[in-house]
């Protein structure tokens, strides 16, 4: 169950946790997220020692290894600034699971402090920055896929669509079974490849049936999966991280 979160006023500075997928595969999305934050007159701090939130190990059953990874990340955010994560699944890991992993441990307080300061990017832009986006892009039909972690672990089904609706030339289309998983699920996509493939095929078909020209998502796992399938089929729909899409159209 998601608890009601009280949002702070807009801070001077924020930490940025770039996530390992963005770092290696989608650095552009990370840069664009930083640009969106900087445009709101916020100084973005990028702790050098950041690696991965530990979620892949955690969901694969390697809890002790995940705890070790998480412990390392806890040390990166000494000052009390909000921590912005451009991914619902890493955000969910850090907000929901860190306190649980360190329950009764010496790092319990540190884990809680980090968890309380975690904000998913679109959440932060909507609820803390109260951004107003000016759309400079062409008319376009866009589908949004909100990741399951953003939707269910962080309770953020609306912040991505809310930002897209600010773009005056964008039509946000309704896809069938929008809340259904795209089939990524980390190692699930490898351990149960066939089921995962069936899921992504259905997700892409629903997006196409809604006549979307573009697909945006706030999670790079979903993006790699959904856009990967569109590209495999040489489909017309083009996928992009929401940070890049927002920045591209509003800058």
């Amino acid at each position: 169950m998601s608890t009601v979160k009280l949002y702070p006023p807009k801070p001077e500075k924020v930490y940025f946790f770039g996530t390992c997928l963005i770092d290696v595969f989608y650095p552009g999305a990370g840069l664009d997220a930083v640009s969106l934050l900087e445009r709101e007159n916020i100084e973005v701090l990028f702790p050098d020692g950041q690696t991965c939130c530990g979620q892949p190990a955690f969901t694969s059953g390697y809890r002790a290894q995940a705890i070790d990874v998480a412990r390392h990340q806890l040390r990166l955010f000494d000052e009390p600034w909000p921590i912005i994560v451009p991914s619902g699944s890493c955000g969910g890991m850090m907000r929901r699971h860190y306190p649980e992993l360190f329950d009764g441990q010496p790092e319990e307080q540190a884990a809680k402090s980090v968890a309380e300061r975690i904000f998913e990017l679109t959440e932060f832009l909507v609820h803390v920055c109260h951004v107003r986006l000016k759309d400079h892009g062409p008319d376009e039909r866009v589908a949004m896929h909100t990741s399951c972690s953003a939707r269910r672990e962080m309770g953020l089904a609306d912040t991505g669509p809310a930002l897209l609706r600010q773009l005056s030339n964008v039509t946000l289309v309704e896809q069938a079974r929008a809340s259904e998983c795209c089939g990524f699920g980390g190692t699930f996509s490898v351990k149960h490849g066939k089921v995962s493939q069936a899921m992504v095929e259905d997700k892409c078909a629903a997006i196409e049936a809604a006549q979307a020209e573009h697909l945006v998502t706030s999670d790079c796992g979903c993006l790699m999966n959904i856009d990967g399938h569109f590209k495999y089929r040489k489909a017309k729909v083009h996928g992009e991280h929401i940070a890049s899409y927002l920045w591209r159209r509003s800058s």
Partner: protein
Amino acid sequence: MSVKTFTPAAFHHQSAQALSNPQLRHNFRGAMDGLMAKRLGSFDSWDIEALRDLGQGIRQKALRHLPDLLEQLEASCQRNGITVHWAESADDAGRVITELCKARGAQSVIKGKSMVSEEVELNARLAEAGIEALESDLGEYIVQMADETPSHIIMPAIHKNTADISTLMHQRTGTRETNDAEELTHAARAQLRDRFQTADVGISGVNFAVAETGTLCLVENEGNGRLTTTVPPVHIAITGIEKVVAEFKDVPPLYALLTRSAIGQNVTTYFNMISGPWRGQEVDGPEEVHLVLVDNGRSRMYQDEEYAETLQCIRCGACMNHCPVYTRVGGHTYGTTYPGPIGKILMPHLLGLNTTKNLPTASSLCGACGEVCPVRIPIPKLLVRLRNEAVGEGKGNIEGAGSARRPMEAMGWKLFSWLARHPRCWRIGVRVVQACRSAVPKRVAPWTDNRVRPTPAATSLKQQLAQRRRS
């Protein structure tokens, strides 16, 4: 291949088969879409979250006092004239019920729907003793006729469409082939009617057993449950020990949650409250009523604070209806009595992880199950815990712990963990990945079966940010 030979160990093969069966996928997709919409509609004028809190509280309270409540239930039942039997294992349950039937010289049994009876393979055990058991729930009747097992805990024959059922009934009972579901239902009803009257024993499940009053509540839509429990001279109710609730006033909220979560109904056609055998002045009722309380691994789950939450389950099936895996592969694919998300937690406890280790991983952890569970069982969290046990990193005492451990994989995660704690080495790792970006093979199965391979960027976010800051 008969679904009866499906096993949890062969989940991969069975899921691949199911996925390549367009009819099966169509049947499940259509049915599950309908159920999801109906569920949502039925909670329309309710504060669903408040009701879920209430349901969770009632079930947690019952489980907290489970040993005491079971004793109280036994005493209350006995006061009502219901004989209580305890069955530690599936064998025990089979033996108790077979003996009760034999004592009455029973040759034929009519059954209401009971998943616990499926769990203990009751029909096969009765058959061994020469007793014929006939399923009277329409879905179960169809499944039994097809020599299959249920593919859903609420709608056992949901994998079949009207045409499948028409053909089956035509072949087995000689009914006219038709696409009219109502005509088929009437035919089945006519076939079953006599059997209620001639059966020696009626066997049913229980939805809620009330410790306070010794009342066995049975939720159903077809009236077969009422006939099963009132017409034959003996009624045997079989249920798991976790189905007990403390007080009578606990029943309405759970009932409200059960019917809505299961099939989007505000109320079922029948709600039976069984409080003992015929007492002489009543118009009908069995001469004997028995309650068989089955443990079969439940008290072992109960010992573990987290896994014990699974026992909150009221068997509504909502987790299945909303599961993106279940809705695509169907219930038989799991090869277990209880399929879907809740089955992925229950079955490793009933069967051990040796044979069920592929079930906890068959989830993208999307959380749809946990979101709809009427009693808030944290299914995704428990799946992660089971994965932890399966790879031998956990602390629980579940049978088969460690059976999914692969040394290379374990080493891989240890290496990942070490790198993620040593940022300089991690950065070197990232550079190596970048350097090899053009060397990533075109095909990386199973990912590239229907997606392009992910290609690392030439420079990482960290490098690009540093560059930007310099300029």
